[in-house]
């Protein structure tokens, strides 16, 4: 258990964390500002991955794949928001959950019809197929690209939220939406813009995940549960919370998965340590969320109210 190994594992956690952040940013805005529970957020992630993979195999350009994934998810997100979700804003959360679960099933089936039920695979862009030696440990260069894109988006969102008019409205909306609308701001338009932004970021996350994971129907269903953990830990409605929450969850999950079995092997036999360690590691982020909820129910980095 050397420090260089720990550093590389922390890098793995960071990479997972920024991927979660791309998803959490949109979800937390929609949840925190529009007070809308959108479980179908994972579908935009899946669609981004599919559109990106399709564009990449057709054009061979990763940039074009990015354009396809982001604009595709944006357009679909805005269309769904305008046509379907708008009818559920005034309703109770239960209706929103039911409607968006329906959307998950709908999009999974669409993906199955268009691309088939078996997974499709996207290659990493040519320049990022190799590995870099980091203190004697080989590390895939594509993962650095994921980290770089995630951090760039974080900086971009920081500027957007804190230094632009739409960001000011967003922050104001998170604090008191009704007051903002009374001041003559078109809340409907703001909602649509936020929803579209969230969907576009989810599409980008899907594209970045595609060369690492398999692109398949339902790929967004599992990750959205982890993303919900992220926004609960970080504080609902807060981009800063989504960012730090995602990094914490990414690190806790990765480091826990690797080091728990090793730690347990000091106290118990190896076979049971392996079994108990990996079982405990998959529970770790939920245990962490439970602790956060007990100690700071508003999340670690809540919006100031």
């Amino acid at each position, binding site marked *: 258990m050397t420090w260089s190994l720990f550093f*590389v594992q922390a890098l793995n956690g960071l990479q997972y964390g920024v991927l979660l952040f791309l998803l959490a940013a949109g979800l937390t805005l929609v949840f925190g500002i529009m007070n809308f529970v959108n479980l179908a957020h994972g579908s935009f992630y899946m669609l981004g991955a599919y559109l990106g993979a399709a564009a990449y195999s057709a054009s061979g350009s990763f940039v074009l794949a990015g354009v396809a994934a982001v604009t595709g998810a944006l357009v679909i997100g805005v269309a769904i928001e305008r046509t379907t979700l708008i009818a559920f804003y005034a309703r109770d959360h239960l209706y929103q959950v039911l409607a968006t679960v329906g959307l998950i099933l709908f999009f999974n089936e669409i993906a199955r019809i268009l691309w088939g039920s078996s997974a499709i695979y996207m290659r990493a862009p040519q320049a990022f197929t190799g590995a870099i030696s980091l203190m004697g440990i080989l590390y*895939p260069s594509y993962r650095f690209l994921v980290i770089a894109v995630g951090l760039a988006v974080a900086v971009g969102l920081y500027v957007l939220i804190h230094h632009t008019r739409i960001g000011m409205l967003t922050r104001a909306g998170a604090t008191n939406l009704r007051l903002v609308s009374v001041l003559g701001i078109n809340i409907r338009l703001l909602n649509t813009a936020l929803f579209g932004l969230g969907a576009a970021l989810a599409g980008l996350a899907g594209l970045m995940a595609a060369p690492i994971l398999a692109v398949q129907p339902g790929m967004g269903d599992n990750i959205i549960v982890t993303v919900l953990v992220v926004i609960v830990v970080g504080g609902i409605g807060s981009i800063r919370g989504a960012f730090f929450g995602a990094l914490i969850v990414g690190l806790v999950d990765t480091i826990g998965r690797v080091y728990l079995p090793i730690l347990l092997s000091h106290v118990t036999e190896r076979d049971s340590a392996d*079994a108990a360690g990996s079982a405990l590691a998959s529970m770790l982020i939920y245990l962490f969320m439970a602790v956060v909820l007990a100690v700071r129910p508003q999340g670690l980095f809540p919006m100031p109210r």
Partner: protein
Amino acid sequence: MKSLYAAFTLSLAIILTNSVSAQQTVKIGFVGTFSGSGASFGEDMYDAFMLPIERNGGKLGGVPVEVIRKDSQFKPEVANQVTDELLDRENVSIVAGVTFSNEMMAIYQKVIGRGVYIIGSNASPSQLAGAQCSPLYFNTNAQNDQRAEAAGKYMMEKGYKRVYTMAPNYQAGKDYLAGFKRYYKLPLAGEVYTSLSQLDFQAELTQMTAAKPDAVYAFYPGGLGVQFIRQWRQAGLAGAIPLITGSTVDLLTLPALKEDAIGVVHFAPWGPDLDNPQNKRFVSEFDAKHKRLPSEYAASAYDSALLLDSAITRVKGNLGDKPAFTAALKAADFQSVKGKFKFNHNHMPIQDFYVFEVVKDGNKDRYTHKTVTVAMADAIDAYQADCPMK
């Protein structure tokens, strides 16, 4: 009362099959997973099973056969339901195929209880090779863990001293590792079980690299394998550490893996380049008809059709005499695509296991397995001692 009912249905089934036997159409129910994530397995099996039948003008052993294809959807309850249809409505005398173990376990007792044969060519649960073996059940595949046993023996003989193992944390993963350790006797440099729902193995690969093993044995079937191999290559490990796998780079995943899988080592009782006339014919006919290389699941299904052909010939189409038909099947009087092939007393094959390496298929834009050597000759499964049949 239950046994009386069973005896009654059994005798009724015998009377029924007797009355329709002798040159009448033999009905075969082919149960396979044809939809969902396991669909490619079922399709490959069915396409290969139909090849000898179509070549013989719809006959096996000179008798016209009717194959009724049923989709079990990778769900035991659906397998159960379609088997009911095959037994009650279609009155089949043979159930063939069966893709996954949980499907086989769901239908086994019911089919055997009705006096109907199961000629399985893929799913091969260990219980059915052991204590629950039956005169009515034959399987042309192998026990899953035999592939791992062959790998363990090969890696022991190759002299690898620091082997690191990786597998998903579920029953098949543990079975493979148990089979591997039956023949690989040295202590492992590391043994990692990843969560079955886990898709990203980077953290475990980092941990593995730090342990500096001289070879890795990994079991990641289907889509998991595609992700594992791609991440392996992205991490720069291809060529750096020998990767020995079980059911990870089969011919169903190679079209997705392409050059990422080059050099990865694989174990199976069959490969497309095995040098025997039956195999050459099988591979070229399959390729010509379906425009792809057959997988080992296809090879076993093809063998199961040849097995039926030989047995039906022996009994001259009279499937009613069960002891005679069982003996005819047991004789396995056909040229298998695997080369050597005979049945053990538990009706599981005694066959060779080979070491394969992934290579480019000549100048075609696809990838295949190249035979390296025999890993284990005349391999016998670990469960046969529990089977009371002689």
